[in-house]
């Protein structure tokens, strides 16, 4: 496997392949990824979950870390859960909002 250069767009692109299994929308499009930092050999991501009620919330952090470790082998990956500010549906992209049906009957 060819190692991918660690850049913010490359990290975001990788996280766009991790989906909220219930909503069927990737973490980036949902607006769950709050911050991406990287330095040589290390990746730090801060992300939220859609709801404190969602039992898959913390599991998605593991999935994101696994995706980044797979995409950037050798890099140290750290994915932290951020609770403030709380995630809001308005953080999602227009495409994600359209998928969720937001705006159709509001």
């Amino acid at each position: 496997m060819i190692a991918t250069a660690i850049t913010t767009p490359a990290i975001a692109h990788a996280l766009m392949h991790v989906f909220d299994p219930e909503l069927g929308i990737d973490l980036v499009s949902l607006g769950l990824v709050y911050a991406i930092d990287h330095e040589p050999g290390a990746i730090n991501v801060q992300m939220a979950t859609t709801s404190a009620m969602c039992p898959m919330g913390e599991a998605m952090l593991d999935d994101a870390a696994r995706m980044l470790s797979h995409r950037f082998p050798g890099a140290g990956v750290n994915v932290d859960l951020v609770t403030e500010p709380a995630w809001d549906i308005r953080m999602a992209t227009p495409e994600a909002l359209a998928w969720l049906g937001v705006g159709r009957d509001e």
Partner: protein
Amino acid sequence: MTARVSPHESPPLGLIAPFFLVAPAGLAVAGLLLAGSNHQAFLAINLPRTVAVVHATVLGWITLTIMGALYQMGPVVMGGQLWSLRLARIQFVLHVLSVAGFIAALDRWSVGWMSTAGVGIVTSLALFAANVGVAAWRAKTWTIPRATVFIALGWLLVTASVGITYAGTLQHLWFPVTMGRLSMHAHLGLVGWLAIMVMGLSYQLVPMFNVITKVKPRFGVASLAVTSAALAIFALAIAQDPPAAVRVAAGAGLVIGPALWAFDLARLLHGRSKRRMDVQGHATFVSIGFLALTAVIGLVAATGTPWTDDAEPARWLLAYGACGLGGWVGTTLIGNSFKILPFLIWLHRYRPRVGIAPVPVVADIYNDRFANAVLAIHSLAVLGIAASAVAGSIDGLRLAGVVLAVSSVLHCGALSHMFLPKKSSRAQTASTRKAVTAS
């Protein structure tokens, strides 16, 4: 507070799936028994065929499904481990065999076999309560669903104790099982076990599946507490075979808690972020409609003869039972079965491949249109039973029974189809990629 989820903490798919896949057989049996019923069904609610239909529905379909759901939710949602997975497997076999024997004994009114199979059912329920009770006890935080499990399990054991006592008295003639005492047993099960379970777990499942973050429940604890208190009063009153005024007053008390819950649920759903509704959302609205119908018909039935043909006093009671069990509880079960089982399949089969290969999401695992069709056919069957009972049409009742059996077969087919391999349908769109890259 969230519970951490991992495939290692979730019970094996092979443990949970049989509960969901076998349960519709209970409803199919109930439908076929109804299809073979005769005009006597309108004469009394305690006829062997009617009692068999009710127990096939409650113990065979509803309770078996709830058992599967709770064996999963205990570890996955509440965060507490089950006491024993092996015990759960044994309990499943014991429950299925005992319920099958019990239904056959009820339909033939073989009191000896009713007692024998009844002991098996009570044992099964006790094993289940112990296993799930331990999981709820091991959970770290107090939530409405966790409290619900304890309350509902308590009422389940009370219902089962009363039921096995009735089986004993039918065999040994200790005391007569009057209509009031029968009603007490029925409501302990319908309200104490099923309604409280549906109401309490919905406070976890509805916000989770509909992405409700802004609106908070207002009457969660109150609705459960009021329902439990009202049920205790109702049970004590109705067991005395009271006059109509007392029946209606006690029945009205029973309505308060579910009404608070329905109001709360409507508020939550109104504030949902996920506006596009799937089968679970549709089922929630349908179930609230059935709840309203159940309350109205139940109160009419409680008034007694002025509203019914004196020669056929069971018609409104049949309609009431159909709307409550098949409608309110049943549609809730169907809706959530298309979430709970796909989620479990996803967790075990596809999540280990996240980050390594494209995997389907939960919505890819079931066909939402087919699921909605199952919900619609089931709802029509229940409405058909209720309408036929009120109208006194035995042909309508038989036809509705056939439709109910068909819906249960379709439901089982839809659930079985989830186990076939699925592909991801969530290709990353160019627009979302562009938007993120630009940011």
